[in-house]
């Protein structure tokens, strides 16, 4: 047939109609897509997921790590692990970059040049351990040896304290921005040696004083799991209410239903005021009120009535409500939810000269509503079921560090061994650890994978295995309210050319060589053997999530599951009621030190969700992760109220000199922040590193060096929120690195809001 124009059109019509009418073709042929079936991505190889623990921060989440061809590819939360239930933080994710960091130290290094110059030469492990052992054995007075670690739990606490006790050394734990006041108040008010947790999932009202529990405080992943259910849990009758009392706009304040700004350090006074309202309005059972006030009733706290104290607290009017009425509404809301109310305090509330008083007054509120030990309240944690795992070594207070550094300075220390900590950078500069270590009559050894500021001061650097290459266990703190023991296993071998050793195995080897290996645990051949020894004790309990009469099967299940737990093994203690009148008698105003002239502000140094205390500042995923509120990355910024900045004439990106309480200063860029109170500025910690590590060297500043040495009166912990600084414009300006503005912002209009909001 000749293909004329008419025939072509006819044929085309028939074929199209036929195809449609007969539905001859598969449905997918009508989907607009490429005519070629494309491989959307290639899937090759088999992967394995191994359970272990995250050690990037103290929360120690349970993880599963994806391994392909001997390399770790991805970390995710272990959905079975009772604390984090499958969730994880960005710091867990960045553990991979710790493992494969290009600046990891491959083998032992011995100092060649002057301290701090970074001149080292590689030596063998035999030489390194001979050298360390020689220095340990040379000490006639063994208390001249100081061992410094991070806070320890589980078998590592057991082993390290056994080693230092057997040898006769001193042992201190270091943690930047330590919270000794919190630990003390948990003992004083709740009568607990273990840290409690909070049943956010079942709570109806959460009153948080300064505790940034959704950001960086204690166990944010565990708390976030509960928070999600607190807001929109399946089967909940009412959405939970969160009120955040805070002198700074933290991530938790950003997520609160109501943020109540307050003058720094006045949180305890506000808690007493809330208690006064509950008592005077009879919102709690009378017998409980009598117990808490020693029979005095509301007269014990009348001096804290809202109309008397509101102005002193610095609470502004909110949504047209006067401050004293804001306090009354908080008290009524808190009391209305009864035992499903939680009052927590931490971060800024404890970091003042009166921090212990603040926390005592705050946590006493829980007794008033009966939420201690109740569902939806404060959940107490039992100790570990095996005594050898119950040991915990908490961070020493900053005051204690001050005295210790003075001791070193006075020549009372011959050897310092540091493991996994960087106090040269992280202690307040006024303590002067760096200058103190810079002397010839002291031998400094660090167990460190990276050349940080402390390692640069060391004579001997012993690279440790990273957590993904090493064994371990953990008793989480806070636990989930029942007994949990987490297991950490090596999921990969070190890369070729890397030659690290486990810290615990080094301690065991030193114990044998020095002759300390008379008893358990120091007589164990390896840390792996020690952990198996502990596992046998868990097996002997014959209860919990893993049970098996055969030890090898029990051990394998323990590792596969990521640990052992027993949901029925809860705390059985019944803490006695604190005395509110006695707590009130200890009430004190915070002492704020520092500049008072010119543009002065209360300085709030804060931890961000990415860098936290700065221990991961060398990891690019953490550096490049935008701060949730400002979206700034890679640098230090100064958060200042937009209203104040406009009044001073400061624009975003302007450089200012921040002059500290101790006369030190640095230059940083301004970020206009609509939610920062006019009397404070916020500066993130975590930057300001000088050591030769790519991604962290020379970035930003460390605000802890501006503080001087303000200490909490009772516990000597660092009162890091209790100083005042002055800012002076330098006249220079440049764009600030932030994600905000990289993609054009949505333009909300009346027809289309981006973040839609409903009242319920």
């Amino acid at each position, binding site marked *: 047939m000749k293909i004329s124009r008419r025939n072509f059109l006819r044929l085309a019509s028939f074929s199209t109609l036929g195809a449609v009418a007969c539905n001859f073709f598969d449905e997918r042929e009508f989907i607009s897509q490429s005519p070629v079936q494309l491989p*959307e991505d290639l899937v090759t190889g088999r992967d394995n997921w191994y359970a272990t623990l995250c050690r990037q921060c103290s929360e120690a989440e349970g993880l599963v790590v994806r391994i392909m061809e001997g390399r770790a590819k991805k970390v995710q939360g272990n959905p079975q692990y009772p604390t984090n239930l499958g969730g994880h933080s960005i710091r867990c994710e960045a553990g991979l970059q710790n493992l494969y960091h290009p600046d990891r130290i491959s083998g032992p290094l011995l100092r060649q040049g002057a301290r701090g110059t970074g001149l080292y030469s590689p030596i063998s492990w035999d030489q390194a351990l001979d050298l360390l052992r020689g220095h340990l054995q040379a000490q006639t007075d063994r208390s001249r040896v100081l061992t410094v670690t991070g806070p320890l739990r589980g078998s590592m606490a057991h082993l390290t304290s056994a080693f230092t006790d057997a040898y006769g050394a001193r042992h201190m734990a270091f943690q930047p921005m330590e919270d000794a006041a919190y630990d003390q108040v948990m003992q004083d008010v709740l009568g607990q040696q273990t840290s409690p947790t909070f049943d956010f999932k079942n709570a109806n009202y959460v009153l948080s004083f300064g505790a940034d529990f959704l950001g960086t405080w204690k166990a944010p992943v565990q708390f976030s799991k509960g928070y*999600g259910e607190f*807001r929109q849990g399946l089967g909940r009758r009412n959405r939970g209410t969160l009120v955040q009392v805070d002198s700074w706009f933290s991530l938790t304040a950003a997520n609160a239903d109501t943020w109540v700004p307050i003058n720094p350090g006045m949180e305890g006074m506000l808690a007493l005021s809330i208690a006064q309202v509950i008592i005077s309005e009879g919102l709690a059972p009378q017998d409980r009120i009598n117990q808490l006030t020693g029979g005095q009733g509301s007269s014990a706290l009348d001096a804290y009535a809202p109309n008397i104290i509101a102005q002193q607290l610095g609470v502004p009017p909110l949504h047209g409500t006067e401050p004293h009425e804001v306090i009354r509404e908080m008290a009524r809301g808190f009391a209305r939810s009864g035992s499903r109310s939680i009052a927590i305090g931490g971060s800024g509330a404890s970091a003042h000269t009166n921090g212990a008083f603040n926390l005592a007054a705050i946590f006493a509120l829980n007794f008033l509503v009966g939420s201690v030990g109740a569902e939806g309240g404060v959940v107490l944690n039992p100790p570990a079921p095996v005594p050898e795992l119950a040991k915990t070594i908490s961070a020493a207070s900053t005051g204690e560090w001050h005295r210790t550094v003075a001791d070193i300075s006075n020549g009372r220390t011959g050897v310092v061994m540091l493991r996994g900590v960087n106090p040269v950078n992280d202690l307040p500069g006024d303590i002067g650890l760096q200058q103190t270590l810079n002397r010839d009559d002291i031998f400094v050894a660090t167990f460190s994978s990276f050349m940080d500021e402390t390692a640069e001061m060391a004579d001997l650097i012993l690279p440790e295995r990273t957590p993904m290459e090493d064994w371990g266990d953990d008793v989480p703190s806070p636990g989930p309210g029942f007994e949990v023991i987490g297991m950490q296993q090596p999921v990969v071998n070190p890369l070729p050319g890397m030659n690290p050793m486990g810290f615990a195995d080094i301690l065991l080897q030193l114990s044998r060589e020095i002759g300390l290996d008379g008893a358990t645990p120091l007589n164990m051949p390896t840390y792996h053997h020690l952990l198996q020894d502990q596992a046998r004790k868990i097996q002997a309990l014959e209860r919990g999530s893993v049970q098996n009469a055969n030890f090898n099967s029990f051990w394998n299940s323990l590792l596969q599951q990521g640990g052992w737990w027993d949901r029925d093994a809860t705390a059985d203690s019944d803490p006695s009621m604190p005395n509110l009148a006695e707590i009130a008698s200890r009430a004190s105003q915070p002492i704020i030190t520092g500049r008072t002239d010119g543009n002065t502000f209360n300085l709030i140094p804060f931890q961000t969700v*990415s860098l936290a205390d700065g221990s991961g500042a060398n990891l690019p995923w953490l550096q490049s992760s935008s701060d949730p509120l400002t979206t700034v990355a890679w640098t230090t910024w100064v958060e200042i109220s937009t209203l104040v900045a406009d009044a001073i004439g400061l624009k975003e990106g302007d450089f200012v000199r921040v002059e500290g309480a101790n006369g030190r200063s640095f230059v940083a860029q301004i970020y206009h922040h609509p939610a920062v109170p006019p009397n404070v500025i916020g500066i993130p910690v975590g930057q300001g590193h000088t050591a030769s590590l790519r991604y962290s060297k020379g970035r930003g500043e460390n605000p802890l060096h501006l503080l001087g040495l303000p200490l909490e009166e009772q516990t000597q912990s660092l009162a890091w929120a209790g100083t005042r600084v002055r800012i002076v414009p330098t006249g220079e300006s440049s764009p600030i690195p932030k994600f905000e503005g*990289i993609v054009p912002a949505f333009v909300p209009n009346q027809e289309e809001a981006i973040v*839609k909001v409903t009242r319920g």
Partner: protein
Amino acid sequence: MAETKKWAMVIDLDRCTGCQACVVACQAENNIPINEEKDFLSRRAKQWIRIDRVWEGTWPNVKARFIPVLCQHCENAPCEPVCPVYATYHNSQGLNVQVYNRCVGTRYCANNCPYQVRFFNFHDPEWPDTFWNQLNPDVTVRSRGIMEKCTFCIQRIRRAERTIEGRDGGKVNDQSLKAGNYMPACVNACPTNTLTFGDINDPNSDVSRRARDPRHYKLLDHIGTSPSVIYLKKVDPNAPEEEAH
């Protein structure tokens, strides 16, 4: 019955705290290059899923709202018809797919995307040698001149199809995805369970159940893109009348 699936995501804004866990999980899973300081300053940082922060009100009654924004996998995707080389197309499971070896870098798709979730590689990605060890072998490293964006972690879906359906003879659904580490990386990471992923054609799936929440809405719904990402409104008892919807 893979053809009947339609992958979708529900994002509950009342659960989201803005913690960024999803953002970094996505970077790790999908071999997204390190966003260096210069990338922020030159406005070329890439985040397949980002968390936009919106300020509302004035001090002291100020609020910060968070909203995770990723490719919405629109049924009527404005990015698809403008691609001259079929590098972006809609597959039979409702995914808006980007084929890297077809992309010639016209950037028409990014210009046409109302959600601004497509990112262009102005440079070849760079990592120190040791960081190559951690790259995901299931995901192509994109070179200079290529457009990239969220794929709903299609490599995980494909792996699940091979493993669950091919090897184990099971059914790929949101429960089996969850059990086997096949959920998108952002969903796995989220500590507050803000994100739910699954087959919205299955009325019994978690994602279908949550999508029926009265708080549901779609981003820029009025422009008719018909996204596969469904948001649940933020709840704020203090919201002014005119703000609450």
